[in-house]
């Protein structure tokens, strides 16, 4: 008969426990300090149609948290992430955020929700006064609208208005050199699609006053078939097309427009094309689609950015997304703010975050800043370029100019009555 190990506490484990116990009695403060981790809560979307983005957010956070923990944690306390699935539902996101703080004892929140849910989490942060960094919501009003402003919430995300200004000024340059006057638009029919397209065309006409929008299409979000939209645009015979379709909708659209040879008949500007989730999925990516940078490891063209993209790929076996770099940046901000405040207390960290500039692989000049007056991220790498069908997909990204962005953003805020 062979002897099997009986369940229970082994001799070795008992010894270890006794040793630990003795150490605790000898130096209790050390044990307490080490046991006291700092919990950071994170609601994000881990199931449903955009689960891929939520998962890539979680991955990026864990990648950075490991680094912070390895170098001693936040003010000597190891970070423990508590990440929950909101399924993309705003009410669920709000409930989870509240529970994370009240029940799980999280001292800070990273809000990994899309625009719809981020406003709900924002209200929870307002109510509980907990430090909250939004990491995925691009809706400009979240920080631009002074009614939303609270001292304990920040946004570490690219912003719709910045994208529109950079995209439109890039598109206007091409419109002028190639004489593209007749434009069509095709964007998903919900708040993001309408707002982004509206802002883009507003600035396009400002930079290139000759431009005329001759056809608009508003397919439903997640519509399976775009044939009628494609043929409608072909009928209108525009010289250029703008679209802010994204993800699977964009790849469907490209596959369906491709067999009508649409990309040979007009210049296409698709702001969300240069994202690995779309680039790696489309099998026959047409050459020469103009796109904004979402996340691409070759822009900014620095060794730090390339190394970060490769490290992510090595760990998770896929490329990061736009949501990934934003979440990673949020952890970098937290770590630096805690160092500056020399404390992990939410209020002090919030004060330290305000106006903080940190070194960051995703900065236009190697740094990014949490702007003091509206608590939002500025100075990140932002640009447009054209696609090719294999890596690096967008070989030559033209960087946007932050001076112009700041000027026009200020004008836009004034026109909206925000300042």
């Amino acid at each position, binding site marked *: 008969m062979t002897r099997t190990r009986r369940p229970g506490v082994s001799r070795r484990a008992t010894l270890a426990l006794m040793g630990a116990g003795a150490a605790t009695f000898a130096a209790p403060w050390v044990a307490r300090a080490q046991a006291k981790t700092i919990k950071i809560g994170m609601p994000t979307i881990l*199931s*449903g149609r955009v689960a891929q983005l939520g998962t890539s957010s979680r991955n990026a956070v864990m990648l950075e948290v490991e680094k912070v923990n390895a170098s001693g944690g936040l003010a000597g306390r190891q970070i423990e992430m508590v990440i929950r699935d909101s399924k993309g539902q705003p009410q669920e996101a709000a409930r989870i955020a509240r529970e994370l703080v009240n029940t799980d004892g999280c001292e800070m929140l990273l809000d990994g929700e899309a625009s719809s849910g981020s406003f709900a989490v924002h209200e929870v942060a307002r109510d509980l006064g907990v430090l909250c960094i939004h990491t995925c919501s691009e809706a400009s009003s979240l920080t631009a609208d002074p009614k939303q402003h609270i001292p304990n919430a920040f946004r570490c995300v690219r912003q719709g208005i910045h994208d529109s200004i950079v995209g439109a000024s890039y598109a206007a340059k091409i419109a002028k050199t190639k004489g593209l006057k007749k434009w069509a638009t095709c964007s998903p029919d919900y708040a993001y699609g309408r707002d982004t397209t509206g802002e883009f065309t507003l600035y396009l006409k400002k930079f290139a006053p000759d431009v005329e929008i001759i056809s608009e299409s508003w397919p439903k979000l997640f519509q399976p078939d775009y044939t*009628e939209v494609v043929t*409608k645009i072909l009928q209108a015979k525009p010289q250029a097309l703008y679209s802010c379709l994204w993800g*699977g909708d964009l790849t*469907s659209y490209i596959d369906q427009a491709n067999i009508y040879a649409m990309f040979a008949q007009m210049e296409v500007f698709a702001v969300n094309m240069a994202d690995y989730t779309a680039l790696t*999925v489309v*099998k*026959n990516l047409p050459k020469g689609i103009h796109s904004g940078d979402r996340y691409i490891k070759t822009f900014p063209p620095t060794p730090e950015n390339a190394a970060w993209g490769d490290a992510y790929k090595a760990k998770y076996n896929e490329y990061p997304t736009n949501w990934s770099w934003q979440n990673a940046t949020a952890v970098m901000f937290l770590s630096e703010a805690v160092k500056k405040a020399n404390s992990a207390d939410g209020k002090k960290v919030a004060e330290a975050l305000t106006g903080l500039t940190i070194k960051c692989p995703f900065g236009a000049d190697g740094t990014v800043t949490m702007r003091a007056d509206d608590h939002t991220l500025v100075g990140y790498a932002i640009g447009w370029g054209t696609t090719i069908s294999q890596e690096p997909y967008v070989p030559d990204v033209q960087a946007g100019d932050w001076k112009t962005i700041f000027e026009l953003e200020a004008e836009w805020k004034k026109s909206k009555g925000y300042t």
Partner: protein
Amino acid sequence: MDLDALAGCLTSPACLVTQTTSGLIIGMLLFLVAVGLTLIFGVLKVVNFSHGAFYMFGAYFAMTAYQLTDSFALAMLSGALGTAILGLVFERAFMSRVYGADVLMQLLVCYAFVLIFDDVVRMIWGPEFRSMGMPAAFQVPPLFIAGGVVPPYYLLLIGVALAVALVLGLGLARTRIGKVIRAAAHNPGMVSALGINTGLIYGGVFALGGMLAGLAGALAAPVRSLTPGMGFSVLIESFIVTVIGGMGSILGALIGALLIGLIRSFGSLGFPLFTEGLMYLFMVIVLVSRPTGLFGKEVA
């Protein structure tokens, strides 16, 4: 509303050709899904709410087969056959147990499987969207017919769907099996008493319905992105088609699908903001004037 654009299109042959073929493509894919739905309802008297899942599985099977073999024909075949087998197993194991049950019970079972099938796809193929890609043979410039643009792949798609419609229609009307199926739809008790295995017929019809939806998914895979849950929006439109055409009528499904396709393609020109609404409006008009649908028969 943009009636000028619509009028301009109706007078231009190029636009007419493009929009009509565009309507046919949308309609034909819908027909393949809807005809399975209507067939299953006609014979089994079950509203198969999980029908969209077969469309989804067809697309995923085709994508996987295409990636493994690089053969478009094999991809279509595995999309259709895979879902046929799945349909048969699903019917024998689960649906056959709720035939006599309350409609709500049937809906509940079907809905449970919508969720289960979505999760199965998520487990096997992952939650992110996938794309099969257009086979090289069809990566050719579109044809120009009277100035209108027609992609060759879509001609194939329309051809396949029309062939299916023809074979189904003739098969049900002219063959012995067709007669038995129609008899089973009318009076299953009598058919059973005559020594015909109705269980086999039910399973076969369900498998056929699943196969047609799977074929639609496989044909759509090169041009549509694949995601868990992709069957749902297709299912809603197929319901509209079957309601317009009349539950249980194959000809009704064909006409209904084509009408919906044409409404979408021409509606997007004339009523760009009301294309969806137009579809539902049409359904309401049909239901008010003919409650059984265009080709539906009064249930005795």
